[in-house]
């Protein structure tokens, strides 16, 4: 399974690994989130072995979402070496995400 579903602990572990990480913050009631879900799944397959791609359900992890300043969903965060390197808010074409991933491989 290339796509991870993170709770707070799993999220921290992935980020602290220092690897390139992409995390999609979403919720079941959010149409735009459901719309980009297949894109995120595809990226998880495409970047398997190169980046950790995962999702956080903001409803399940409200404290983590608040701590990271998630104020609108979908929001996609990118991390490398344990630090946030980019964030994309709202629905964007897949290229917007691959551009960040490719630049940081």
């Amino acid at each position, binding site marked *: 399974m290339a796509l991870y579903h993170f709770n707070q602990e799993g999220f921290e572990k992935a980020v602290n690994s220092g690897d390139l990480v992409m995390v999609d913050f979403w919720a079941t009631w959010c*149409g735009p989130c459901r719309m980009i879900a297949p894109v995120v799944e595809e990226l998880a397959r495409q970047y398997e072995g190169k980046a950790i791609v995962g999702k956080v359900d903001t409803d399940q992890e409200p404290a983590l979402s608040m701590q990271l300043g998630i*104020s609108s969903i979908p929001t996609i965060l990118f991390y490398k070496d344990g630090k946030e390197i980019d964030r994309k808010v709202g629905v964007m074409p897949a290229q917007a995400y691959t551009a960040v991933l490719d630049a940081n491989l």
Partner: protein
Amino acid sequence: MYDIIVIGGGPAGLSAAVQARSRNRSVLIISGQERDVPLSQAGRVNNYLGMPGLSGRELIARFSTHAAQLGAERMEGRALSAMATSGRFLVAVGSEVAEGRALILATGVAHGPKYPGESEFLGRGVSYCATCDGMLYRGKPVVVVGASAQAPEEANFLQELGCQVTYVSRTRPEALQPSIDFVSAVRLEIVGDQQAAALRADGREIPCACVFLLRPSMAPADLMPGLALSGPYLQVDRDMATNLPGVFAAGDCTGLPLQISKAVGEGLIAGHRACDYLGNPPPPASNIC
């Protein structure tokens, strides 16, 4: 999965839907309530060929009935976002996602320019979707700028979630829960530092964690990234095709004159060309033309 998704329930969108249904294509119209269509505000329309003297509401009711009688389906709400993926289009409406093979944009014109601070704080305390983002603001003060018929219901929903809601518009809507604070204002500005911190409404600051801007429709460029514009309008060719394959546009969103006849004519072309784009038509249905 629909053959064609039409975004917008005004004359252009309904005309496109009628044409596509006449060619036996399945059609979903995504639109707010009828009173959000600008035509419904027109007291009397005298320049629509052969039907002078009707009110805007009567006209839009006739157009809607025509489309419904031909079997066009309808989803009430605001299309928030659209994207192309593997030969199909996905459109997010609140918590729903609609799927179609071609897209016709008939969104009308955005009502006025963006507010100062709107683009700057979008995604950082400015939201277009109460359904999506409301839960992130439970227990916090939020402002709803209500510019659509559906906005009072969305404000009520936010209050039910546990948000502390202040509703801002010109006049207090009847459907708004009496317990929701109301501020009448027209000059609006979103202010803050890293995040939106307040809405300035006619000079008065209303502190909040999020400003929900609820208009009848999204501007097409916000709806679907990558659409080419011509000034403030969508760029289209004689086939009403935009620069994105499978995406057509009609009506006020393509430019002047903002008139019913022009919208209906463009809707017809967009409907036909969207059917052409889909390829060989299904067998003709009887009695729907």
